[in-house]
């Protein structure tokens, strides 16, 4: 029975392919006067014939146009909402005096790392050096960071619930895993295309593309983290009569948190990479400094901007990573004790 099913699927695919060929041929404007010509004159075998052309472009354009016409208001709303969030965050960071921002970042590192002085000082200096490299970089870095933070915020609000769903049901996991695989195999800048189509140039498509690009590892690690929680521990929660909510928030999520933090860390790093790429579509930020430097054949400027990006990456990585390490240590202090 299984064999038969496969055969039918293949036959179906084959007829679809043939239909595609005929359909493309018919809708092509450059086809010969009559089909019989193809059998008399075989020159079309030498060079790819003009009529052998799938009219995908046309239909995608139609779909996007329809989408924009009918659901435009939705995209508009999303656009405005994200833009408003972004502006609020960005303005806050830009208007604040820079020494306070540097100290603020160091303070976050201090608490995230569990009051490790080394990490705090290191992160503080890295932050300082971003502006120190070139005064312009300061506001550009803030712009980059703001876009990233909004994307990460989106990743967390969507990625973690999806990860939780996946950990609960084999069926949902089997459906979502291929989608995640696809999201990770497609080259990053491809995500910019639908974004631009729907939202135009600027920061919002960058946020959307960054979100799509960065969310898979977070979803995966949330799912994995929950499934890796010791079976006896979840059984204990069940055995004492915890309901689903108590089990999830009281036991599973806290114990999966080190893995979820790892996911947030990875998502952050990927988001940074994406935001840099997004400068290609006119998103302002550190990425466009690199681009400018290269366009002006000013290697020094491009390199400086590159270093600033690395510094930003280090700052973000240290903060998220050290927080994850601290959670890990709390759940398994044995390793820590035996020094």
């Amino acid at each position, binding site marked *: 029975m299984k064999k038969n099913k496969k055969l039918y699927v293949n036959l179906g695919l084959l007829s679809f392919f043939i239909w595609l060929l005929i359909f493309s041929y018919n809708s092509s404007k450059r086809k010969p006067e009559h089909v019989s010509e193809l059998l008399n004159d075989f020159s079309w075998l030498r060079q790819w014939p003009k009529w052998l052309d799938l009219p995908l472009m046309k239909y995608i354009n139609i779909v996007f146009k329809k989408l924009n016409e009918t659901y435009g208001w939705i995209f508009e709303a999303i656009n405005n909402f994200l833009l408003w969030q972004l502006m609020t965050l960005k303005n806050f960071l830009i208007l604040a005096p820079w020494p306070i921002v540097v100290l603020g970042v160091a303070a976050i590192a201090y608490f995230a790392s569990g009051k490790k002085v080394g990490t705090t000082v290191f992160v503080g200096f890295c932050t300082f050096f971003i502006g120190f490299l070139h005064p312009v970089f300061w506001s550009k870095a803030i712009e980059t960071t703001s876009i990233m933070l909004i994307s990460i915020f989106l990743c967390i609000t969507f990625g973690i619930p999806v990860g939780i769903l996946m950990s609960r049901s084999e069926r949902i996991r089997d459906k979502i895993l291929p989608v995640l695989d696809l999201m990770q195999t497609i080259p990053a800048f491809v995500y910019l295309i639908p974004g631009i189509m729907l939202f135009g140039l600027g920061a919002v498509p960058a946020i959307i593309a960054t979100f799509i690009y960065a969310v898979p590892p977070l979803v995966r690690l949330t799912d994995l983290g929950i499934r890796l929680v*010791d079976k*006896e*521990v979840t*059984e*204990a*929660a*069940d*055995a*004492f*009569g*915890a*309901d689903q909510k*108590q089990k999830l928030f*009281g*036991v599973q999520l*806290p*114990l999966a948190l080190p893995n979820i933090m790892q996911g947030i860390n990875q998502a952050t790093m990927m988001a940074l990479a994406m935001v840099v790429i997004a400068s290609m579509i006119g998103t302002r930020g550190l990425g466009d400094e690199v681009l400018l430097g290269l366009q002006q054949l000013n290697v020094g400027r491009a390199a400086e901007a590159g270093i600033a990006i690395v510094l930003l990456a280090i700052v973000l990585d240290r903060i998220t990573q050290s927080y994850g390490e601290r959670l890990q240590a*709390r*759940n*398994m*202090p*044995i390793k820590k*004790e035996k020094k």
Partner: protein
Amino acid sequence: MSKIEINNIYKIFGNEPQSVLPMVQDGATKEEVLEKTGHTVGLDNVSIKIEEGETFVCMGLSGSGKSTLIRHINRLIDPTSGDIQVDGLNVMNCNPKELIDFRRHSISMVFQRFGLFPHKTVMQNVGYGLEVQGIKKDEINIRAMEKIEAVGLTGFEHQYPSQLSGGMQQRVGLARALATDADIMLMDEAFSALDPLIRSDMQKQLMDLQAKLKKTIVFITHDLDESLKLGDHIAILNAGKLVQVGTPVEIIMNPADDYVKAFVKDVNRTKVIKAKVIMTPSNQFKDKDKSNNRIKINEEQFLEEFLSKIVCSDTTVEVVDKKGDIKGYITNKELETSLIKS
């Protein structure tokens, strides 16, 4: 009505357990089922009655289905077929809410690898069962502290589990199970992961607690000595099938098959058998007046305690009850049959 009744439970692990069930009911063995269908038989027609206030021990080799059986009692595992009654409540008919209620108030559990919450302190762990019931924090702390004291962990209440030794961790597990004051306590190889010395400490502690609390305990172990020490009744499982249920003495004196025999082969009988079990009752004892060398022994004493006094001498033991009335006699002859048989 027994406290816990398990009736004709079958549990088959795999994708389509229902379709495999008839085959198992027709008597196919675990190996046959695995080979033909890829399904694992966890339990094969197990029925057990457990009385209120007793310690019921389930014993068997690893993989014989002990954990599967005990998890049916609080329905952490659903049976493929069969039903379970606890206190007259048919657990199989419970809806999710009733099941949660049942688990919160009537039954608690201790786990082999402790199953403690690593992100909670000892106090929070012990209070977990109360926390999920929605009890106020002050009251939880008071009641948790009581149980922490009962298991002798005072002073450690703000530590995390991983800062404690194995034995102490399992005390936390025990205290957590006691904290909800449920009548029934399930213990899945609760002491198997502990060192021998700590293990006998824990056994003693459990027996002391049980003497006071009189819970119904279902205790799982693969260790015969442990089951003899703790159990009022012992059930022996082999490859998902129940092979024998009985008191420790019944199991030792009359093992049902080779599997049980292999278990009891090396047991030190003198530690298990009581005087009253092997004595010849006074009305059947022929040569009452023959020997002159006599000692009195209480009927509840273990063989071990008086063995040295009679072996290799022609002393006759008079077995007496609490009041001092003679119930029976033990001579070298009775000793011989009880120690050498099978």
